[in-house]
């Protein structure tokens, strides 16, 4: 657990000092909103309210690639990864720490993005803000855990930046579907269907277990 806390603290502190991941993701998602606006007939406004949940999660998926790539690449400098491999206890806690840091950073970006979407598409959610935040947290949990695992593979391969989305996106489609479904219900003023929320929880658990267990094999060498 100490390893988890130390890694989480280190990643959040470096991010706080440099703010490079938050800023790059934030600017990127704003750009995506502009692109969506010109790509959609009727633009990013009330006319396309039904598309908002899907677009919100699509933007999140695209932005997550930037954040995940930068989560592992600093560890490759000066071979810091070998140092991480020497942590006492289960190496899965290294992944857990890095994934949690990425989760928090992604959530911060998504919070801004969601607020922007609510304003642009003229949706008022009022008391359901908590439910929306919960769905954002659940959906992002799966992205952060399996994403950190796959970024640790791709960052040490040639063309890693190209490889990461190819590896990651097919595994994120179930999250996109379930999270967009739940988000659509919340934005429409209904409680999210139990099926979508249950699926999000199951995905989070499965991806967390797979990442935690197999990170051991990624770090050794």
């Amino acid at each position, binding site marked *: 657990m100490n390893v988890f806390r130390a890694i989480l603290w280190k990643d959040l502190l470096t991010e706080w000092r440099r703010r490079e991941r938050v800023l790059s993701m934030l600017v990127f998602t704003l750009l995506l909103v502009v692109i969506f606006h010109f790509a959609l007939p009727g633009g990013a406004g009330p006319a396309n309210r039904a598309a908002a949940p899907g677009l919100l999660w699509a933007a999140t998926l695209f932005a997550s690639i930037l954040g995940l790539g930068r989560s592992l690449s600093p560890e490759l400098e000066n071979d810091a990864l070998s140092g991480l491999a020497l942590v006492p206890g289960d190496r899965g806690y290294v992944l857990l720490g890095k994934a949690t840091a990425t989760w928090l950073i992604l959530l911060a970006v998504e919070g801004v993005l969601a607020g922007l979407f609510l304003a642009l598409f003229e949706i008022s959610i009022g008391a359901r803000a908590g439910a929306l935040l919960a769905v954002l947290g659940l959906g992002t949990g799966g992205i952060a855990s399996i994403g950190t695992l796959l970024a640790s593979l791709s960052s040490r391969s040639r063309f890693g930046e190209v*490889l990461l989305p*190819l590896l990651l996106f097919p595994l994120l*489609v179930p999250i996109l579907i*379930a999270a967009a479904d739940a988000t659509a219900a919340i934005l429409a003023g209904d409680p999210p269907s139990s099926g*979508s929320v249950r699926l999000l929880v199951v995905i989070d658990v499965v991806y967390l277990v797979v990442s935690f267990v*197999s990170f051991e094999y990624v770090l*050794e060498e």
Partner: protein
Amino acid sequence: MQGPPADPIARAARRALPATGIVLAGLTVVYAWVVWNAPPDRVQGVIQKILYVHPPLAFAAYLGFLITGVAGALYLVRRDDAYDRLASAAAEVGVLFATLMLITGPIWARGTWGRWWSWDLRLTLTLLLWFVYVAYLLLRTFTEGSERIARFAAVYGIAGLAVIPLNYFAVQLSQGSIHPENLERGSLGPGMGLPFLLGVLTTLTAFLFLLALRVDVGELRARARARLERAWARGEAA
């Protein structure tokens, strides 16, 4: 170089090659003849005969992906390169069969449903799975060092296997299926049972033949590389 392979998987593959090759050749002839003479479907006409090709391809593709995941997990536990060669061979052959399935599917769909593609449950699932295993092969291509390739690929192969049920429930959540549930209900029309059975047998034999061939080639390649490295080491020592 000429001796029998050292590991049991490659030995079994090489021993199985001639037999599966002969059985495959025989089955293919019988299969083609039976399909040619099978009665055309009353509603769909001749296009329905894709039934004898398309689902068997799917069975073989899914079998390949299952082998990739399991063999990858076994590699991580036992650290025997033979399992990695089996995993990568199964992924390559699986991608081949899945590609053929994704080509024959739209042809059949155009003929019966009237459109090339529908985002239905099984189509979408198979497409996603195809993406996972193409990414698996790309990961192998872009990673360096045979030991690291084996390790990384095994990790991704296991993740790829875990995503199948997740994708299933997710796509089911987003829409229903227009794919028939024929197989579960056993409702093949009269005269369709035999050609379908032969299709499954022939396709699975073809799968095993290609898998054995690919495992054998992988093993020979590994031995050649080992010999080359030994020769280099000797040259440096001299």
